[in-house]
C-alpha cells in the first residue's frame, strides 16, 4: 500500500491541454476519478447559475435521457457526485477498473453533450429541495451567516440566495452558454487514484476527454479584486426567528487568510487549537465540558482562492445565548493575549498531521485531496511540504494571526425563538 508520504504523482497533459494527475495506490479495490474546473461560484453572472448547471448535467444528453443515464450509472455502480464550490466545480466518481471504459464514456457524454432538456422541471425540484434544507434551524443559521459575511459577492451564494435568484435563471440558453464556457476540456484538472497501469489511465483519458469543444466562448474571469477587497466593515448581527426551536443556533465569524496567504498555516493551527481539533480543543473543553452549554461546539477555517473565513458554531439552550457569545470572546482574547505553550502547540500540530493520514486512507480521499489542492493553485511540492509548513508555525505566529483577524469586525447569526433574538 503506497501512502501519501511516498506519493509518486504522474503528471500528463492531454492533447487539449488539460492536466491529468495520477497517484498509484497498490491494492486499492476501486479507482477514484475527480475532474476539477476552476472558477465555481465566482464565475456566475447570475447568482446560482453554476449550481443550476451542476444539477442539469446528468439530466439528459444528446444520446441518453435522464432515465437512461440513471439506469446506466446504476448498472456500472458508478457513484457520481457533481458539485460547485466557491472556487471550483467538480465531478467525482468511484468505480471498478473493469468498468473504466464504460464509466469514462458516460461521464464524457454528460461533460460534453448535456442538453438541459429538464430545465424547468429541475428548477421546480431545486426550489423544493432548498426549502427542505432550510427547514433545519442550524442550516438556516449557517446560510444566514455566510450570506451576511459575503454579502454583495459571489462567495455569498448560499441555498437561500440560490432560491431567491432561481426566478432570474429563466433562460435555458444562458445556462447552456454558461455550461459551454465553464466545462471546457482544456480547463480540466483530472485527479485519479487507484491500482491501475498509469499508461492505461493516460490513454483512456486521452481517448474520452482529449478532444476540445471548439465553439467554447472565452471565459470571463471572476472579479477577483472584489472578492479580495471584500471586508466586514462593521459588526453585524443577523437573526431568523424559529419559535419552535429548542436551541439557539449561533455562528460567529471573521474574514481570514486565503489559500495562498502566508497566514494560512498559522490560521489552520489556530483553528485546530480553538475548536477544529475535536474533543480536546479549547472551545470544546471550556464551553461544553466545563460549562455544559452545548453538545455541539466547534470552529472552522475555510480558505478560498480570494478570501477566507474563520467561524465558531454553537447550538445551545436559547437563554444561554449571551453566555456563549461571551465565551467565544473570552477564548479569542485568551489566544490573542497569552502565548500558547510549546506543549499545546506541538500537540495541536500533531493533531493536524495525524488526522491528515487518517482522512487520506482511500483512493477517493487521496484523489479528491490532490485535485482540490491543484485547482486552488498548489502543486505536489506544496502537498509534500505541508507537514513542514505546519511544524514551522510558532506560538508567536498564533498570537499574531489571532490579533490580526479576530480583532476585526465580525458577523453573528442567530436562529432561535424570537424572544432571545
Amino acid at each position, binding site marked *: 500500500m503506497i501512502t501519501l508520504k511516498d506519493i509518486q504523482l504522474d503528471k500528463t497533459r492531454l492533447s487539449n491541454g488539460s492536466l491529468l494527475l495520477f497517484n498509484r495506490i497498490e491494492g486499492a479495490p476501486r479507482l477514484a476519478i475527480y475532474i476539477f474546473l476552476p472558477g465555481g461560484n465566482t464565475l456566475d453572472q447570475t447568482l446560482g447559475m453554476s449550481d443550476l448547471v451542476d444539477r442539469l448535467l446528468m439530466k439528459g444528453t444528446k444520446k441518453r435521457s435522464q432515465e437512461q443515464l440513471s439506469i446506466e450509472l446504476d448498472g456500472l455502480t458508478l457513484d457520481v457526485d457533481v458539485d460547485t464550490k466557491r472556487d471550483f466545480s467538480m465531478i467525482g466518481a468511484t468505480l471498478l477498473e473493469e468498468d473504466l471504459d464504460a464509466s469514462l464514456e458516460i461521464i464524457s457524454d454528460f461533460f460534453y453533450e448535456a442538453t438541459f432538456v429538464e430545465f424547468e422541471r429541475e428548477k421546480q425540484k431545486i426550489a423544493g429541495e432548498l426549502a427542505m434544507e432550510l427547514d433545519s434551524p442550524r442550516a438556516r443559521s449557517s446560510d444566514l451567516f455566510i450570506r451576511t459575511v459575503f454579502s454583495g459577492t459571489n462567495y455569498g451564494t448560499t441555498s437561500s440566495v440560490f432560491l431567491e435568484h432561481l426566478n432570474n435563471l429563466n433562460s435555458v440558453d444562458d445556462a447552456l452558454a454558461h455550461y459551454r464556457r465553464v466545462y471546457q476540456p482544456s480547463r480540466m484538472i483530472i485527479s485519479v487514484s487507484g491500482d491501475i497501469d498509469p499508461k492505461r489511465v493516460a490513454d483512456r483519458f486521452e481517448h474520452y476527454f482529449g478532444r476540445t469543444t471548439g465553439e467554447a466562448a472565452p471565459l470571463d474571469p471572476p472579479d477577483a479584486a472584489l472578492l479580495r477587497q471584500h471586508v466586514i466593515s462593521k459588526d453585524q448581527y443577523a437573526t431568523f426567528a424559529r419559535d419552535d*426551536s429548542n436551541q439557539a443556533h449561533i455562528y460567529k465569524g471573521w474574514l481570514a487568510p486565503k489559500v495562498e496567504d502566508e497566514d494560512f498555516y498559522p490560521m489552520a493551527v489556530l483553528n485546530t487549537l480553538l475548536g477544529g481539533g475535536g474533543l480536546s480543543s479549547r472551545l470544546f473543553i471550556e464551553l461544553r465540558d466545563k460549562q455544559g452549554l452545548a453538545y455541539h461546539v466547534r470552529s472552522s477555517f475555510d480558505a478560498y482562492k480570494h478570501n477566507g473565513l474563520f467561524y465558531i458554531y454553537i447550538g445551545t439552550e436559547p437563554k444561554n445565548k449571551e453566555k456563549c457569545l461571551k465565551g467565544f470572546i473570552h477564548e479569542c482574547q485568551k489566544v490573542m493575549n497569552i502565548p500558547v505553550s510549546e506543549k499545546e502547540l506541538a500537540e495541536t500540530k500533531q493533531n493536524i498531521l495525524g*488526522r491528515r493520514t487518517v482522512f487520506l486512507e482511500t483512493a477517493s480521499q487521496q484523489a479528491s485531496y490532490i485535485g482540490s489542492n491543484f485547482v486552488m493553485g498548489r502543486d505536489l511540492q506544496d502537498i509534500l511540504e505541508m507537514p513542514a509548513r505546519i511544524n514551522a508555525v510558532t506560538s508567536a505566529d498564533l498570537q499574531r494571526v489571532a490579533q490580526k483577524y479576530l480583532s476585526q469586525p465580525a458577523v453573528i447569526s442567530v436562529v432561535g425563538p424570537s424572544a432571545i433574538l
Partner: protein
Amino acid sequence: MTMKRECESIKIPYLRESGERITYENGFTLIFVPKQGDVFNISTWVKTGSIHEDDQINGISHFLEHLMFKGTERFKPGEFDRLMESMGAVINAATWKDFTFYYVTGPQGQNGKNFDTVLDMHADMMTCSILPDEEIGPQYDPDDPGYTGEKRERSVVIEEIGMREDQPWTKVYNSLNRMMYPEGHPYRRDVIGTRQIIGHIPRETILDYYRKWYSPQNFTTVVVGDFKREELETKVLEAFKFNGAQPAQPLTEGPTITSGGKRYEEIKGQYQTSFFITGFHGPSPRYFRETIALDIISYILGEGRSSRLVQELTEKPAVPVFNFVGTGQSSFKLGNVFFIQGNFSLDDPKAAMKQVEAEVEKLLTTQPITEDEFRRAVKKLKVAFAETSETASGIADAIGESLTVIDDLNYYLKYLDVLAALDVETVNAVARKYLSLDQAYTTVLVPES
C-alpha cells in the same frame, strides 16, 4: 494473563490475509484483522443500548457513553481526548438500540508506537471508568428556568436532546416508533432519553448499570491494522482488566408485536415542507437471506438513481411534489425495520402518501422486480460491501455490528455468498411478505399553517 481460549481463523472479504476470532473463557471476544496501511482502528462494542432500559432509566446507556470519557484512576478527565487527538487519532462513540461502541482510528506513527498508547487508554477507559460526580454535575430540573447552579455533562446531554428535537427527521422517527412498538417494548423509546430523566438520574444508578453491562461477556473488541498477531493478543489481554463481576445477559426477545392499532399519524411543526417516514416490521437479522433480500429491494425501490421511487416521484413528474425520497433497512436484534422516507411540498399529505403507496403496490402486484433491476442491485451491494473493506474503520464497524446486533459473525463473513445465492423470485416473495401496505406505519410532519 493466561486464559482458556478458542481461536478461529476467519477469511475477511477483500483482504489478502486471514483474520482471527478469539473467544476467552470469561466470554470476551477479540477479533484481529491484519490490514496493511498507515491507519489502524480499535473498537469495543458492548451488547447494550436502549434495549435494556425502561421508563425510569431511559437514556442511561447514552449518558454512560458520554461519562466513559471522564477519566479513570490512572487518567484524569480530558486526558484520553488530549492524548489521542495529539497523535491525530479520531475518537468517538455511539449508542443505539442494541449496542454502544467506542472507537479510535489513528495513524500508526513512527514504528507503530501510537497503537500501544491507544490500546492502553482505550482498554482502561472501557474497564476502569470512574464516572466522577463532579463531571456528571448536580441533579437539577432542566425545565426550571430559574436554575443557576453548575452544569456539567448532564447538561451536555440535555443540550443534545434539544438539538435532536430540532431535527425534523427525529420528530418523525420518534413518532413512528411510538406507533410501531407496543407499550413496554424497548424500541418504543428514543435512545437519548428525556430531559427530566437525564436531569435527575443519580450517579449510583449509572454506576450500577456500568457494572452490570460492561463485562467481558458483552464485549467484542475489534483491532484492524498492520500488527503482528501474537504481540497484539498479549498486549490486548494485558490491557483489558476485567473485574470478574457477574454480568447481565443481553435480551434476545422482545414483547410480541401485534398488528392493529394506529398506523397513520400527522404531527405539526413550524416548517415549510412535509417530512414522512413509513416503516414495516422486517425479519430477524439472523435470517440472512431475507435481510439481504430486503437490502436488494431497498436499492431497487428507493436507493439508486434509477430506483422506482426516485424516478417516479422526483424525476419524472411534470410538477414534482416530492423533494426527496429514499428507502433503507435498519438491523435490530429484535427485528429489522424497512423504511421509506421522504419530503414533499403539498398541502394534502394523504394524497402525497398515496403516490408512495402506489409504487409499493406496483412492486407487490403488477410490476415485480425484474431480472435487470435485480442484477444492478446485486452488483451495487457487492461494490458497497467492497467499499467497507477500504478503511480500517469500515471493516471494524461491519464486524462489530455483525457480532453485537446479529450475534453472528457469519452475517459479515458470508454476506457475499448469501447475496450471490439469491434469485429474483425469492426477492419478490420477500417483498410480498414484508411490504404489505396493510402492515405499514406512517408518520407525517406537516407545516402548522
